[in-house]
């Protein structure tokens, strides 16, 4: 018997052509009403509604301990030496290593009931950012690629839709079947992306001159045959020119000195400040990697150090986004490939653990101050509302207004946006 579970039509997911059409319309470089006509298609209208939604994903590489962060179990055999502290949300306590984040909890929410049934770094990384169970030989698009495809503002938006600020820790931000347009643009250690510097030998004037010559040639060809593809192609050069005029977006040094002090001069502080800068410019998806939490040895000393680096800049970023009114449209997630064993090994370490751990969400579309799911007294099992990477992935997309049960139509091929067997965590959505 055929199973007809919810696989809705993809109409709401504006098609590539309508997007390009809009682009051509925006560019209005070439005569003919074609671009304008395409711009008028419903897909784009749909998109304008979701304009400027963004996702910030912080990936804690190595597997951060849920017990030292979002689900503390003080004074139990597994709890470790740290105390739990109250947060800005009555009733929610988190680990004392996160005093600044605790003050921002009213913007955030915790899911304490992940069971991802996995203890492998590579698998965990892939599964958390794709929301699918890894299958050998199959690539699924990274959350950032999905976000970029669905959230990139229409018209002359020249910035990358999917940026990975890499400070240690792997991950490529693969776009898989969504295509290279949505693959991560990497800012290695916060440095500007590749090719955003004009060659020394090429002056801005020369660049403009040769571009005019290119445009003329393309227009001549458009006289023979013009399609959404040719429009998109010529338009991509206009966008590149725009980007070069805006390349300071990638330069965190341009942020005020006092903010550098507030965020801290160290790597993660700088990357959070950079993320704020990018999000302010409506970049739809920014991921910051923070490395590393794979603490098989001296788990507590290392969490003091790493979370000590994480807490203030992250909390400052949340507060700034809220204060600047960006949090309404920015969904925040702090994830890891898995958590760490409740059992403390003989080296004061904690090992890999996917059976009962937590992620932090917040901002756009999320119930602020919510706390979903429970683990037992010493955190060795989920006792309430078990979920996994698939549900979190659905929730993130639902939070920014994407129908996660829909499909992508890629050149006629249909791909479910998220794992069809899973769905969003409804009670976590605002």
């Amino acid at each position, binding site marked *: 018997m055929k199973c007809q579970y919810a696989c809705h039509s993809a109409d709401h997911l504006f098609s590539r052509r309508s997007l390009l059409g809009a682009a051509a319309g925006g560019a209005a470089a070439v005569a003919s009403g074609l671009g304008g006509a395409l711009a008028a298609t419903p897909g784009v209208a749909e998109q304008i509604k979701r304009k400027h939604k963004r996702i910030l994903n912080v990936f804690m590489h190595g597997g951060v301990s849920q017990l030292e962060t979002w689900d503390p179990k003080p004074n139990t055999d597994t709890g470790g030496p*740290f105390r739990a502290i109250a947060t800005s949300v009555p009733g929610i306590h988190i680990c004392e290593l996160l005093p600044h984040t605790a003050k921002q909890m009213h913007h955030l929410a915790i899911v304490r009931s992940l069971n991802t049934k996995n203890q492998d770094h590579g698998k965990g990384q892939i599964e958390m950012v794709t929301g699918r169970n890894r299958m050998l030989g199959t690539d699924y698009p990274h959350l950032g690629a999905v976000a970029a495809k669905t959230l990139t503002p229409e018209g002359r938006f020249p910035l990358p839709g999917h940026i990975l600020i890499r400070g*240690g820790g792997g991950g490529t931000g693969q776009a898989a079947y969504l295509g290279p347009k949505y693959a991560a643009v990497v800012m290695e250690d916060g440095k500007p992306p590749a090719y955003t510097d004009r060659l020394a030998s090429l002056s801005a004037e020369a660049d403009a001159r040769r571009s005019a010559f290119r445009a003329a040639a393309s227009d001549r060809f458009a006289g023979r045959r013009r399609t959404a593809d040719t429009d998109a192609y010529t338009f991509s050069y206009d966008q590149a020119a725009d980007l070069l005029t805006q390349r300071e977006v990638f330069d965190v040094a341009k942020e005020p000195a006092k903010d550098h002090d507030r965020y801290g001069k160290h790597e993660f502080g700088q990357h959070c400040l950079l993320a704020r800068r990018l999000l302010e410019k409506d970049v739809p998806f920014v991921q910051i990697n923070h490395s590393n939490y794979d603490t098989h040895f001296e788990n507590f000393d290392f969490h003091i150090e790493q979370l000590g680096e994480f807490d203030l800049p992250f909390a400052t970023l949340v507060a700034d986004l809220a204060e600047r009114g960006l949090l309404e449209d920015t969904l925040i997630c702090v994830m890891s490939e898995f958590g760490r064993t409740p059992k403390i090994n*003989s080296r004061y370490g904690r090992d890999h653990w996917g059976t009962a751990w937590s992620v932090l969400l917040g901002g756009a579309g999320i119930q602020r101050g919510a706390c979903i799911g429970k683990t037992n007294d010493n955190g060795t099992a989920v006792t309430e509302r078990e979920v996994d990477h698939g549900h979190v992935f659905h929730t993130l997309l639902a939070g920014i207004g994407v129908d996660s049960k829909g499909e992508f139509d890629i050149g006629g091929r249909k791909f479910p946006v998220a794992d069809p067997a899973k769905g969003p965590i409804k009670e976590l959505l605002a």
Partner: protein
Amino acid sequence: MADARPIDATKTHVSLEHKHERPLVACRFDPTGRYVFFGAEDNLVQRFDLSAKTATPLAAHDSWVRALGCSPSGDVLYSGGYDGRLIFWPAADEKPRPARVIDAHQGWLRALAVSPGGEQIATCGNDNLVKLWDAADGKLVAQFAGHAAHVYNVAFHPAGKTLVSCDLKGVLKEWNWASGKHQRDLNAAEALYKYDTTFRADIGGARGLAFRGDGKQLAVGGITNVTNAFAGIGNAAVELLDMAEGKIVVQLEAKEKVNGLAWGVAYHPDGFWIGLTGGGGGGWLYFWKGEGFSEKTAIEFFKLKLPNDGRDLSLSPDKRQVAVAHADKTLRLYSLFEKTA
């Protein structure tokens, strides 16, 4: 009545075992030799009575207790915890209650030491500070700032009027506690620190710190040759400093390198050093002595495989036993002489 058997480290053997509900993290003999106090992965201090073989819990800390010390008379127990508190206890009361509770440090209080005369207690912790407390009234006598990283350990010089502290990065500072001033920086125990670029984190710190009886040498226990900080792949080692020159004279290490940390170190008046390891390579007691008592060399002349990883070491007042806090929820006493059949 005193045991006549002569000290012979090479005959060291387990002479007592006491089981606890949680893994142990610290232990101290009291000066009278009646008790061994120990801390564990709970928020309690236990007073273990060596004759009665019973443990009495001392509850007042809000986190694990890694720092323990006693007044010379043994009347007062001092405990320092990862809750940042320093607590004074009437050591011998039937059910000891805290005599004084001091919020001594921001973040972890990692170690404490009692001055030779018992007048003062030194503590150190994650606020990068070393603090000096009046044993009589618990008042803050002096505060030593200067470390740029978590201060892992502190020890009083047995004769002089100074104390030494060591931080995460192996930086060793000597403070004059009479004047309350920084006296000098000793050579840093650089071998005991590394920034692991793969994991982007620091590994190091003096897990054990002890002076030789005559105060001429200082031993700093930790981990060296770290190739993977997060898996604890590195070798336990003890740096030996000459206090006169303030320089490292020799590194005490296992003949066959052992993975882990030197969690404890003590000097035995018969002229040898005792080191305790725990970590990837398991628990060992190592015994080193200088060649012909040369102070520039140190030869491992005996090692003993322990049933489990060691986490702290304490030499008994009569110098005939060491207590070891073990990760397998056990306090063990090891006698430094031949076992009688």
